[in-house]
């Protein structure tokens, strides 16, 4: 695999947060969350992202082929995203794993949110997304913070008139049943940007 073959798609969530979908796996050991340069030490991908000039990166979350970057600066995502892309390609081309495994006894106990993230991600992949796919929709797990799940809806779910029902009666209900430690779910979707909602919104 050459660096040129790696495809990276940036999906800005808001001014602070952007998800990057990479065509190659980055980390297969669940979720790794880096909240500082110090925590990133030993993981070339996270080190490089924290070092992006002007981005003032606050957090890097890696899971599977996804990287979520949280920044404090107002630098626009097209600019920061280019540097993230370069960091991803460099890390994948290097001779060390892009993200180091979390070894037992190393940087402290795994966070409760990381454990919840994995369980919620499994539920979304195995049950939630196959269900919403019947209506051309997709629900993306963005993050888990303080046991609150942040999701973004896409496809037929984005802008759908029944999105609230999907969120509360569908997703939240399934989380309560299968991951009862979750305290709540927040939808951060920009529903106005939906271009193919399954059900149109209210008339008035």
């Amino acid at each position, binding site marked *: 695999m050459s660096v040129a073959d790696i495809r990276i798609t940036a999906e800005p969530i808001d001014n602070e947060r952007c998800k990057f979908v990479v065509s190659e796996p980055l980390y297969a050991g669940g979720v790794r969350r880096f909240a500082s340069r110090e925590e990133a030490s030993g993981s070339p991908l996270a080190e490089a992202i924290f070092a992006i000039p002007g981005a003032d990166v606050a957090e890097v979350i890696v899971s599977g082929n996804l990287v979520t970057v949280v920044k404090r600066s107002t630098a626009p995502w097209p600019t920061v995203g280019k540097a993230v892309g370069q960091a991803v390609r460099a890390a994948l081309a290097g001779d060390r794993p892009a993200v180091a495994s979390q070894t037992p006894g190393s940087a402290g106990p795994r966070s409760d949110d990381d454990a919840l993230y994995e369980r919620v991600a499994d539920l979304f992949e195995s049950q939630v997304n196959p*269900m919403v796919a019947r*209506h051309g929709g997709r629900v993306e797990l963005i993050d888990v913070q303080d046991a609150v799940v942040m999701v973004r809806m896409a496809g037929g779910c984005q802008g759908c008139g029944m999105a609230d*029902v999907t969120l*509360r*009666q569908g997703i939240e*209900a399934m989380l309560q049943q299968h991951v009862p430690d979750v305290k709540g779910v927040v939808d951060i979707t920009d529903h106005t940007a939906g*271009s193919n909602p399954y059900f149109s919104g209210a*008339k008035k």
Partner: protein
Amino acid sequence: MEAACRLGVELTVASERPSTFQDANPIGLMTIDLADPERAAAQARAFASRHPVAGVVGVDDETAVVAAAIAAGLGVRGNPVAAARAARDKHEQRTRLAAAGVPVPRFALQRVDDDPRLVAARAPYPCVLKPLRLAASRGVIRADTAVEFVTAFERLRRILAGSDVASCGDPARLILVEEFVPGREYALEGLLVDGELRVLALFDKPDPLDGPYFEETIYLTPSRLAADAQRALADCAARAARALGLREGPVHAELRVNAHGPWLIELAARPIGGRCSAALRFGNRGSGFGADVSLEELIIRHAVGMPLPALQREPCASGVMMIPVPRAGVLREVRGVEEARRVPLVEDLAITAYPGQDLVPWPEGSRYPGFIFARGETPEAVDAALRAAHGRLEFVIE
């Protein structure tokens, strides 16, 4: 959904098309036949035999009838089915109201295959042609002359022939012709509690709605109408609700006022449409219910028999603009949204049309591309803020 969550009320959402999550959450989601209220009531009874139901709320004109049937079947609070049906059908509503002496425009029922030239010859002018069952003033057209009448009739006939309407059955083959009532229009939001109408809000509609089409623009509350005129409007709405036999739940009434007093244009057994309810907040800090009770919370409280707060609207002025459709075409982009949101007093701006959506102006259309909400000390200030925010928007349409 949010209101139920805040109240800790468990919801079952029933719709005519199955949710993809229904199997995973059979208590929270169910499919019922909204086209057959009696069958829907039987389905609800079967459900309630396993999961007790404390109340039922319909969300629009059609489901108001279904909700009445379900409530009757379950023995919970609701309207008589006949009353809900009467409220839904414009002709039946006019007939009952006129018989009860409620001031309504003169009206006559025509069939779509009647000769419009013959009908035009005996119509009062100016008049308004209306479909019996469509909402949001879709298909409502004013005619001032016989020539305009024929054009309007044929245009409404084409709307009623559309596949989304024709499926209504016989009501889609009927046209209501009524005398145009001049005067300023008002919207009354109320809650019926054991037959008594509690007025929740009276909205002014500051823009004249004289036609030929009746797309809404701005709602402002509190009303600037004189107190005795407001009482007359409330009394007219209450008489209308009684005449139709409505007893419980939300009502939304459109009324006009002129030199002859108030006129009941239409009364619906449902709350104000969807997003516009965000313009209403109730309660006060000393009430024990907080100062931020939504209309939906009141409706759910009433439906399940929970205590109601003192139904007092917040002290400030509030308003909503239903953003007009600029012109027909495919929406590509809406610019200026952030600038519009920054207008002082503007609280929220929601663009509900999506990129790629066909924008259809009235009378064929019925969907607003967005809504602007503002609050302030006076209705005048709120009105100005809404218009200023609207002025900053640019719709890119192909």
